[in-house]
């Protein structure tokens, strides 16, 4: 695949929703250690809602899909992560506008705009023990690859590394920042969600390629 269309984006979204929903308890547990224990509940509700609302769209473009996801995150996830995941999608809408088939650099642009939006809204940098620790390396790794397949693979690995790296950190943003030293020893839930998202996409992509190579 050299390009993706709305139907494929919707299928990727479904893979993400399934993944985060299956990890809901884990994400709640991580948030219980650092915050208020609701991250898994919030994230899985929001992706499920996004999926439903996307399904209700009539022949959506990729940017319609991105906007619908943004609103679902903002309205259904709520909390800090709702604003931030919402912003991640919201800022990606403009770069995608008017495009029906996205090539890798279109998605790069959407992700990069989203990353900037998240950092701007949350004022977090890598090392602050937030979702940015997974998101920034993932976006950079995605851009560094030649094609989608390699890009998703590298992004997933980078996001996971970033999420794991938060374990040793002391939080400087989010609810966990009030914990000081006590925050270290637990992975950040938002960063873990970012890793799950890129891993779900990567797995979906591999499977989709297998299916189509079978067909070939």
């Amino acid at each position, binding site marked *: 695949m050299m390009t993706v269309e709305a139907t494929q984006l919707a299928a990727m979204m479904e893979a993400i929703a399934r993944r985060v929903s299956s990890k809901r308890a884990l994400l709640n547990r991580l948030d*219980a250690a650092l*915050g*208020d224990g*609701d991250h898994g509940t919030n994230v899985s*509700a929001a992706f499920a809602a996004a999926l439903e609302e996307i399904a209700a769209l009539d022949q959506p473009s990729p940017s319609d899909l991105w906007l619908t996801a943004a*609103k679902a995150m903002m*309205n259904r996830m709520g*909390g800090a992560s*709702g604003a931030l995941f919402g912003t991640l999608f919201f800022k990606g809408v403009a770069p995608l506008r008017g495009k029906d088939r996205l090539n890798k650099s279109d998605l790069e642009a959407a992700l990069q705009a989203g990353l900037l939006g998240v950092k701007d809204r949350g004022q977090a940098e890598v090392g602050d023990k937030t979702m940015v620790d997974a998101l920034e390396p993932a976006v950079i790794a995605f851009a560094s690859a030649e094609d989608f397949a390699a890009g998703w693979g590298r992004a997933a690995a980078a996001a996971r590394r970033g999420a794991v790296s938060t374990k040793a950190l002391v939080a400087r*943003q989010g609810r966990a920042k009030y914990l000081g030293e006590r925050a270290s020893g637990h992975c950040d839930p938002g960063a873990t969600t970012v890793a799950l998202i890129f891993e779900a996409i990567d797995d979906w992509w591999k499977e989709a390629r297998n299916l189509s190579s079978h067909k070939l």
Partner: protein
Amino acid sequence: MTARPHKLINEPDNIVDEMLAGFCAAHNDIVRLEGDRLILRAQPKAAGKVGLVMGGGSGHEPAMLGWVGRGLLDVNIVGEIFTAPGPERILAGIRAADRGAGALLCVSHHEGDRLNAELALEFCELEGINNVDMVILYDDISSAPKGRENERRGTAGLFFVWKMLGAFCEGDADLAAAKALAEKVRDNTRSLAMSLSSCASPVSGEIMFEMAAGDMEIGMGLHGEIGRGRQKALSADATIDLMLPPILDDLPFRAGDETLVLLNNSGSLTLMELFILYRRVAFKLREAGIRVYKSWIGPYATTLETAGFALSLCRVDGQLKALWDAPANGAYMKQL
């Protein structure tokens, strides 16, 4: 320690909606439910007065829905349990509160509440709604040191802001004056909480945070966010003797000051224990030469069924005392 295993609910997904239906049915002389979980006054405030809007997660009942009413808030936007509502819903709340003199969006300082409020204000701008402002409220001294007050969390002590700001906005104040009054109350308020037990999420059934039996945590946040650390639980008097001095030092409250006092029940502490705690607070304040103007003891902002309490003090002058004494009629906040 184990939290209560069984909750009296129906479908976990319906908790918030069913709770709102019950609350509004019981208090339909004071509030009504509109749109996407907006709690409004049954009789809106007269046109030309500043509207007060407050969003926030559920799980703190009677906060905030019990504070909508005459002399108090105009609109409460209700979120999922412990989760701030998103910007579109906040925007709807702002529209509902605006009676021609604009609306003040009150934000209890937590990352999620602040980020969503900022987004909502951006949405307002996009839609050409200009007569709206936001005030960030905080009181918890455990969440950032003195000098960095604006990094602190909003907890039970915002109680004082709701009451006095509510009374203030029954008058002819404009938006800027309302915001300044909210900041004045905030800047004279200090709180510190403690907890003996955890609570269980009614949605997931899972324990919200781990606590060993016989331990206590000082500085716990309103959602069970852990605070300054664990220690062995102490007697009532020793607990107050540990918590009151840092509160007094922080403002600082000085001999001759007059204060309001709130002893807020986080959930399942008994009123008996709270009265015993208050006895020591009153004694220590008298010793320090600080006069108590009025006190409130009870569950005002809970953390589900957590056993714990928050101690909040607010220094008052003539203006604030008059605002405190003004009538109020929320379902869970009545001033005769």
